[in-house]
């Protein structure tokens, strides 16, 4: 099947009294990496949460693989092999790293049931996960938690990986790890949607780019073209100093 894996059409989201998304239109092509960029408060995180069903769209439609998932509950969406890493990483601090990983392996009831080959591949990408296997996850540093969060999201094969600001607060060496991991995942056929503020990170990874402002997508295009065009970056993101 061709066509985008995920589409949003005219999506509006209200949080309490606040109207956050004002008609988001975007498409996430299969097997590629799409960057969702934009200033703080532009509505990026709300968009991801609406895709995951954590907030309900008040108007518009979200489709996944051709199927309308707008009214799906979060677990239903997750079971379509969509993994989500929230901005706060969603690590279970009182559980061990092993238990965090086991939770994400929906089919495994014990750690030994987790696909060993896949686990070794993850250990290769993120050595800290192996190193601190029996530690309470709350004891990890911020960067280690971020690695665990991504490792947890890919412990089973996924169709779509959604990550909110993977580079946030990370040291440069860890960022390189992340970039490596996402490249390998993409090579394995996974579709990836990342929210980013860090333009350099975005430039090194993205195939496509969507820029949000004021609850709408205001620019769509290829990452290469976007990276070339300083004026465009400046006008859309206000980021260039």
């Amino acid at each position, binding site marked *: 099947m061709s066509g985008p894996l995920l589409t949003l059409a005219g999506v509006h989201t209200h949080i309490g009294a606040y109207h956050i998304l004002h008609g988001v239109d975007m498409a996430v092509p299969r097997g590629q990496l799409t960057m969702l960029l934009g200033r703080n408060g532009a509505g990026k995180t709300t968009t991801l949460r609406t895709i995951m069903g954590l907030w309900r769209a008040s108007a518009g439609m979200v489709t996944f693989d051709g199927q309308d998932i707008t009214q799906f509950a979060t677990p239903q969406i997750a079971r379509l092999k969509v993994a989500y890493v*929230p901005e706060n990483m969603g690590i*279970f601090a009182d559980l061990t790293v092993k*238990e965090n990983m086991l939770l994400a392996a929906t089919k495994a009831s014990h750690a030994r049931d987790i696909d060993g080959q896949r686990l070794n591949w993850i250990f290769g990408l993120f050595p800290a996960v192996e190193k601190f296997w029996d530690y309470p996850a709350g004891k990890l540093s911020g960067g*280690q938690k971020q690695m665990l969060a991504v490792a947890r999201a890919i412990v089973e094969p996924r169709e779509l990986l959604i990550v909110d600001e993977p580079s946030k607060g990370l040291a440069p060496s860890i960022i390189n790890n992340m970039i490596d991991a996402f490249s390998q995942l993409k090579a394995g056929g996974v579709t990836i949607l990342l929210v980013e503020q860090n333009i350099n990170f975005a430039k090194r990874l993205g195939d496509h780019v969507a820029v949000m402002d004021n609850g709408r997508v205001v620019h769509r295009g290829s990452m290469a073209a976007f990276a070339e065009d300083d004026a465009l970056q400046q006008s859309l993101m206000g980021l260039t100093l």
Partner: protein
Amino acid sequence: MSNTLTASGPAKPAVDFDWKPLLLVPVLALLVLPVIGSPSTWLTLTVAGLAMGMIIFVIASGLTLVFGLMDVLNFGHGVFIALGAFVATTILGVMPGWTASPELWRNLIAVFAAMLVAMAVAGAVGLAFERVLVRPVYGQHLKQILITMGGMIIGEELIKVIWGPQQIPLMLPEGLRGAVIVGDAAIEKFRLLAVLMGGLVFVALAWVLTRTKIGLLIRAGVENSEMVESLGYRIRRLFVAVFVVGSALAGLGGVMWGLYQQTVIPQMGAQVNILIFIVIIIGGLGSTGGALIGALLVGLMANYTGFLAPKVALFSNIALMVAILLWRPRGIYPVANR
């Protein structure tokens, strides 16, 4: 970044189990020994206190998980206690041949039958309670308090309609009456059974929580239910299951409480409820281990002060709660993110 975890080489889990609260129970027991004076009286009271504590734990464990998992304040938990106890009067009432039998195993079967039926009934009513009363008020604490309180009144009145408003005796079967003599101390047999049952429930709960996937989900859900949903699990379903099991455990606790007191009254739920609240506040909302320690402390305290100064028994438990909260304002074992 982290100063403990950056060292190279294989990392070993840090042993940082918080053991201090575990000392509370023996310390309390030993502190009152000189006050009471007679070691045999002390032993009798201590066993009675542990038995009472175990029963309270059985009841409180469900409530604390219900709170932890869905942030639901259930003030109606007490109704399942009374329900279980009244169901037990009916079941034991229709098994006179078994309860009056001199053979212990027949007595035990009667008691276990009463417990199983009480748990089934309390669990089923718990399911209805969750669907009808609790579900519409998820996330609204004020309404939860009011609605579940209303639910308890209705439940208590319905019990009066079915079993009558008066006190009903709940006699122990033949073989469980009387006491075992240890030295100078008389220890009632049923109290030993209660300690045993409470221990079994704790072990079973601890096993489920730490060794199974369901337990892992519950512990994770207590911390961050949204993330559990994002991983593909239906937390609501899990919550309903925990609510039903919690209600069933309250029913079981009600049977044990009724047998411990040897009478049941429709208001018993509301009375025990207060002890339960003290226990889960002491333990830290959402913590099973905390609930166990809290329940044992409350049970011991109630029995010691019941002997030393009966008029202030309930106040002693409030004083205990105040003391613990001054030490740890969020309870003995506060759960992360709560």
